[in-house]
């Protein structure tokens, strides 16, 4: 037995390069966000002391791996996979949420994944990215406010609502718009030449 069996591929199935790049983008996203978090502690601490739901504005950063991963790989399941891998990375780094971070990551990834699935994984323009980011943010807000392991589970209704609105907004801007911009920039560097997103720099913005 000396040669490996070759799997037949279609354009919607994941190649090895898709898997490894998606995983590393997710992990790099985790590293970036962790570094950013350290830096933003000076900002988030007073936010938290004054009115905690405000921290929802920063939550979008957690959802970047999911949306960015999908925009780069463009295969079904990318958003879900990348968010879950990013969450696993968080767990390995000693997250304050413990094992529950895996559930949170999955749920956030699901939000983005649903939007891309609605567009049958064919549209990756700015409106879709914004929607996907918003959906991820929305699910994040729901997860944090209503899931048993959610950090905001004990807040009053009005505060939960405020938080969910802010996470949705943050998701749309940070996870949606930033990821879309980043993908275009990455395509221009030529580093995406192995992926379906190799032409992302010249794609139309809205259609």
């Amino acid at each position, binding site marked *: 037995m000396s040669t490996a069996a070759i799997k037949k591929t279609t354009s919607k199935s994941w190649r090895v*390069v898709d898997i*490894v790049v998606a995983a590393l*983008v997710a*992990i790099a996203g985790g590293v*970036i966000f962790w570094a950013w978090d350290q830096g933003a502690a000076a900002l988030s601490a007073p936010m938290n002391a004054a009115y905690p739901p405000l921290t929802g504005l920063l939550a979008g950063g957690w959802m970047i791996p999911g949306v960015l991963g999908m925009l780069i790989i463009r295969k079904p399941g990318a958003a879900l996979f990348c968010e879950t891998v990013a969450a696993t990375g968080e*767990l390995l780094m*000693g*997250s304050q949420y413990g094992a529950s971070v895996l559930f949170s990551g999955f749920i956030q990834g699901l939000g983005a994944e649903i939007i891309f699935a609605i567009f049958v994984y064919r549209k990756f323009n700015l409106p879709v990215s914004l929607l996907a980011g918003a959906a991820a943010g929305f699910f994040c807000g729901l997860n944090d406010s209503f899931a048993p392991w959610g950090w*905001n589970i004990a807040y009053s209704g009005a505060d939960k609502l405020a938080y969910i609105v802010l996470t949705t907004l943050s998701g749309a801007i940070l996870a949606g718009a930033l990821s879309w911009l980043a993908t275009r920039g990455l395509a221009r560097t030529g580093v995406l030449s192995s992926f379906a997103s190799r032409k992302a720099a010249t794609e139309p913005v809205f259609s």
Partner: protein
Amino acid sequence: MRQQLTLSGNHALLARANPLSKFAAVLLITAVLALSIDWVSASVALVFELLLFPLAGLTLSLLWQRGWPLILAAAVGGWSTAILAPDSGRILLDAGIWTMSEGSLQLGIGFLLRGFAIALPAVLLMSCTDPTDLADALAQKARLPHRFVLGTLAAMRLVGLMAEEWQTIGMARRARGVGARGSLGQRVKATLGQSFGLLVQAIRRASRLAVTMEARGFGGGRRTWARVSTFSPLDLWVVAGGVLVAGLALFAAVTAGTWNMVWLGS
């Protein structure tokens, strides 16, 4: 071959248990604790978790090193809960947009303890689990697709490199004149640029790693495993331990009358 390839440096008891059983125990405890915010169930679980740390190969100082940020984060969560939970009992503080009452303070303290009690087992888990062993268990025992599991494992190996590269890129950009100190706007812009640079390097390295893996035959349908992931009697003890701790926490809280289901309010 597990005997040959032990987690280097960590020969603690729990390092020899199958990652899936450890994970199951942690999930059980997390689930029970997640269902209620009260200081009794959290404290009971915490006591057991703290007693277990030598079994995970941690020393007191290591435990403190990894634990104190978790306590801090849990305290922040506890504070937020205390000020934003619906009020009950005497009002202690009033700041207009939020109020803290006796009831919500108690809830906040419960939240702090619970937060720490949920975070700690994950730290213990990660201290005594080798990522490669975890991947083996997930692919061989839990039957997750091996391409995804091993592809992710290989990418995870590069995390340390990514963290180093983040620092190098920061220095390289300072050497070009990108000021990372100064106003908030400047710093945000600098961080965004640094992040972009890291993403490019990440994708480049990952693409090369994928070629390496494919060139070694990865991605085919069938493969054998050089390391076997096994279940042993130790795993039964681990799972039983998880059931015990979760059960005791539940029992103590219900008995003390402090059991406070998250969806039912206090």
